[in-house]
């Protein structure tokens, strides 16, 4: 929300309070009650702006008081031709969804706060407390928000849970490739949503990928081969191979870069652990702590 070009409110909670985002439930309700779409607009101005905690709306009430914290870490790795890890960076964030009544004052402490050396906070977090005690003390906004994000660089030995061995051979106007995928150290966790994207060189006109598992596809517009594997099977042999047609005479200078995405739930690469979350300032019993 802007006033004469100057940002007035950028806090999503405040904006949502002004205009409620459309949801399925609401549209169903509107259709049934015939209230038309207008109830999406709140008739009251957000009072939070006036308070000292502008991110939190006042008068929040829930039957079940709960707060969810999701620790999400993203791992960015660059691996060179020979398979050595060149860069491995971990970016993490704590995505919270607060459903707590009143004005709760939360304190979140970590088992190993030393891991976090470069952090950015939601404005609700008190810097000073973090500086002195390494605990996060905050009055949360209502609803989903990102509590903090952090970056851990120079993570020297990140054990990747899978391997990818590509083989490309281009000669004349055609080429072949084979990409094998398999699990490495998975630490007993399931590797999900595995997806390989292979951008082909510009001289490639067509690719016919086939695979032993999953359905690879080639998009001629973006010249990329996408192979959605899904859950990584430990037993199955997984490979994709195919032939490449190219405009004659041109050979690509180098093998394409393969981008691999995957997801492992219940695992934080950095080893960051939340030790406890205390609620002060409110009387209710949290549904689950």
């Amino acid at each position, binding site marked *: 929300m802007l006033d004469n070009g100057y940002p007035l409110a950028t806090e999503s909670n405040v904006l949502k309070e002004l205009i409620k985002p459309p949801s399925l439930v609401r549209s169903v309700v509107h259709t049934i009650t015939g209230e038309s779409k207008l109830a999406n607009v709140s008739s009251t101005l957000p009072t939070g702006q006036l*308070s000292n905690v502008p991110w939190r709306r006042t008068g929040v009430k829930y039957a079940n008081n709960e707060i969810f914290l999701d620790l999400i870490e993203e791992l960015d790795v660059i691996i060179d031709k020979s398979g050595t890890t060149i860069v491995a960076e971990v970016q993490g964030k704590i995505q919270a969804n607060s459903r707590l009544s009143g004005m709760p*004052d939360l304190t979140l402490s970590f088992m190993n706060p030393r891991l976090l050396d470069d952090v950015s906070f939601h404005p609700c977090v008190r810097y*000073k407390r973090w500086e002195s005690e390494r605990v996060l003390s905050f009055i949360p906004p209502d609803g989903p928000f990102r509590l903090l994000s952090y*970056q851990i660089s*120079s993570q020297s030995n990140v054990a990747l849970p899978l391997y990818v061995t590509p083989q490309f051979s281009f000669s004349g106007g055609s080429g072949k490739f084979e990409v094998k995928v398999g699990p490495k150290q998975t630490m007993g966790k399931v590797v999900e949503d595995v997806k390989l994207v292979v951008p082909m060189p510009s001289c490639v006109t067509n690719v016919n990928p086939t695979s032993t598992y999953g359905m690879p596809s080639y998009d001629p517009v973006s010249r990329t081969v996408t192979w959605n594997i899904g859950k990584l099977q430990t037993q199955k042999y997984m490979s994709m191979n195919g032939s490449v047609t190219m405009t004659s005479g041109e*050979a690509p200078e180098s093998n394409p870069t393969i981008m691999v995405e995957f997801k492992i739930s219940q695992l934080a690469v950095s080893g960051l652990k939340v030790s406890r979350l205390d609620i002060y*300032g*409110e*009387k209710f019993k949290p549904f689950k702590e």
Partner: protein
Amino acid sequence: MSTGGYQGPTADFTPTGFGSDSPETSSRNGASASVINPPLFAADYKRHEDLKSMLDSSKDGQKREAMKLIIGMVAKGKDCADLFPAVVKNVVSKDSEIKKLVYVYLVRYAEEQQDLALLSISTFQKGLKDPNQLIRASALRVLSSIRVPIIAPIMMLAIKESVTDMSPFVRKTAAHAIPKLFSLDPELKDELVEVIEKLLKDQTTLVAGSVVMAFETVCPDRIDMIHKNYRKLCNLLVDVDEWGQVMIINMLTRYARTQFANPNQEEVAEDAPFYGEKKKKKKKPKKKKGYTMDPDHRLLLKNAKPLLQSRNAAVVMGVAQLYHHVAPRNEFGIIVKPLIRLLKGHVETQAIVLSNIATISADRCAMFEPYLKSFYIHSSDPTNIRLLKLDIIANVAGESSIHTILREFRTYISSPDKQFAAATIEAIGRVACSISEVTETCLHGLMSLLSHKSENVVAQSVVVIKKLLQLHPKQNKDLIDQVARLADSVTVPMAKASILWLVGEYCSLVPKMGPDVLRKAAKNFVNESDIVKLQTVNLAAKLVLSNPKQTRLLCDYVLSLAKYDQNYDIRDNPVSSLNGLFLQGEETALSKYAKKILLAPKPAPVLESAFKDRIHWQLGSLSHAVNSEATGYMALSDFPAEPPDPSVRNVEDDSWWGKTKEKKKNLHGDSDSEASNFYSSISGSDVSGSDNEGSEEGSGSESESGEESEEEEEEEGETSSDEEDALEKLKKRFGKKIEVSDSEESEEESEEEEEEESSEEESETETSSDEEEETPRRSAIAKPKVAAGKTAKSSALKPTAAASPRRSEEPSLLDFDGWDSVTASTPNSAPLNSYPISTATAVPGASTNLLQPLTNQMAALATSSPSSSASSAPPSTKPFTQEIISAVHTPKKTYDLLNRITGNGLAVTYHFCRRSHITSSKMVAIDVTFQNCGDSTLSGIRTGSPQLQSGMRMSSDVNIKALTAGTSQTVTVGIDFNDTLQPAKFEISVAPGKRYPVQIDPLVGELLRPMSVSEDKFMALKDKLTGMHENISKLSVAVSPASLQPAVLEVANMAPVATTTKSNMQRYAAVTSTGNLPVLLTIVCAEDTKIVVNCEKMVFNSMLAKAVKESLV
């Protein structure tokens, strides 16, 4: 549905000017509706008609419904302009909901229908006086959004009025309205500047950002207005909203550049390379140069630092540029990590941040070297990001990292992204150029690229090789030879031109190659592109000078080809004409110098970052991003050679303090509030900021920071000018006092910002009833504290002063001399915590004299427990004040500190004696009883090594020389819990090396000091502490009012408030011992008991409620 039908009422409503507007808008509406959704066409019109009749109805409910529908349509992007007259009528509605909605509507449509909007203006003026702050604010916002020049004076008036509004939200809106009015009527600038000046004095975080924004748009050159507010802005910074922070930081950067001395003076003067500087700096301690950072300069840097942790990239960037432009070089390092963190943001953010890093790294490469890997290119990066990253890598590369970088570069070269590969080769050239160690390696690497498959790579390599060879042509003769051989195979014009130039330039080094290359070039001359042709001509000219025998004919041929070339550049090339001259065989003046002109030694090109030249832009600015001056860009001035007088930033009272240092005793009534004002500009507002957040630890950590800054300033003050020295001393001297009144102020700040003005002004000018009520209370609470601080000091200063109370009967506020000397007598007892009872009992004689106005209870207490009389005398019992009184009741309960079994015969118990401690009123006095239960004498009992949370303090340690078997000794220990419920941990040691770690857990009720207030006052205070400062809990058991009071007083050190009305309601009041924040307890006895606690400290709220509840059950 005819349009005429609904134009009728509008025509009635607006006699002039509307007629032309209306059909246009209505037809637009109709058209758009029909285009988007034809079936809705009819429905929409009907709705408008319906809405109109709803708006005209007399029922508020209907109107509200109609307005909701309209705003809903506006939000969906539907045109509701034709409803304007009908809506405007409702601006006078009494219902606040309707009013709000009408305002929202007006903000959207007022600009389109200015004439009609004029009708609503009187309502806004009324709205500006509405009791609801939201209405006032939105009335002002709407009023200022109507861009009708004739109402500019009205807007001016409205702004002026709103600036003094009670609600910070309205003041914020007023600040927003200023730039709007300025753009509407620039002639009002002078008046607006006055308004801004007034607003700058505001103490709230809500306003600060907005007013700085207004300042920046209206009068960015009036830096003099900032002086007085500088410290306040620095202190508020952390708590201002994100966008405000960006504004303030940018403004303060400019400010700092004009007001402070350059922190990097030495380096600038020496102009040494970066590495050198670093070493030199270490060798030279700062003192030698005589540069000391202005404490204000330090304050800015210190307060901006935590913002690096912001989630908002703009804020982080702002702080980074602040540090870049203002901070000493050695402190700059802290911004590196946050900047790198930003690289994980959106591509757009990345681009801006990278271009800024590129600029910084061109200057300070070593900073980023450890983070080199963060700049490695990901396959998903778009080309512009890749180029920026390459530039940074090339900037940052050092001798240690160069080999990994080159390996990385090798991969990049094979990228299918041509532009990127070319840029990589250029980067290699730069690296080779800057690090002489690897020049050779790079050159050979590049040579190997000459056989690369890709034409582009080869071409780019040639260009870079040419540049590198220029550095050391002599040593690389064979390389030149090798490159020259490429002349036929290379087809890219730029590369070919480079080769030709190289051969021509170094024709003396490769004499055999020249003619051959020229021959081939001449052969193909007509088919070449212009740049190659030019270089061929050049080559021919150079060769003919050095080797005329072999090349003259070729040269003639080339020149004659060039003479008739289509391109006039080639035709008119000075070389060709020049050659034309001397080739005719005549000795002209020119031909004599031909060799000198053509074969003059040329300086090697410097390969450097393209971002180097952006260094003169302010980082993070638009101008920096586009590398040309954007409208409204204000260049940072250089640091002044001689910094302007730092005293301009002192708030007036500072100087006043300096002058009246001697007289302060007499003027104490005034100076008290002066002090608070003065200090708030240093650390006070900081405290208030986070107290507002309602944080439990707020004052704890904050006041700590306050102390920190104080300390820092003190340190610096030592080396700074005399004047500052004096100031620092003053600060030191009054540190304690100021701190107290300061926290007092923070409590009130949220309600009354105006109070910040000096107290004389306050009493004269401010007449609002609220103020009048507040002022005496504040001074009443604060003054005794002053006394406390003062006496503690004086006792330290003159421990030998005689005890001679002079005017004990009259508790005058000005009676300081008497007071001083009384407490000066207590030095005997002050360190005396350790020698209890015996020596201390000597004092009561003197002190009871003074304590005549003590309450009865206190007197009773004093006599009933003689052991406590020594410490019950302290000044903090305050005979002066009507408000803070001594304990009404003292619980007898004792707590075990050390069990006699674990303590090997030494048992230690403690008991909250509810007296104020002798050294500081902030301390909670605790009677600690040491009992020797063993059979042998224990000697050397001491307490020590306290482990306290920040902000907490403990009075001097206990030292009992000997404790014979079976005896006990009680010592009063004072602990300042800093209004937290953290335990105070310390050790008790007994002579032969035994140590027992113990801890005293504070009880919430004991951290209070009872306050006696009237019922009205109580209610007034309570009204201010609602919302999150209120805790209501219920007890399902009925408690008889009679049993209530003892139970409450047992757990909480509070004073009952005399009630006149309901008998089933009891009220208790107290203040917290450290922060002096009021704590109010209300208990309603009915079928079930309701306990209401009001306090700014939310922990107190809940804990006290819990404690009281437990005591009642």
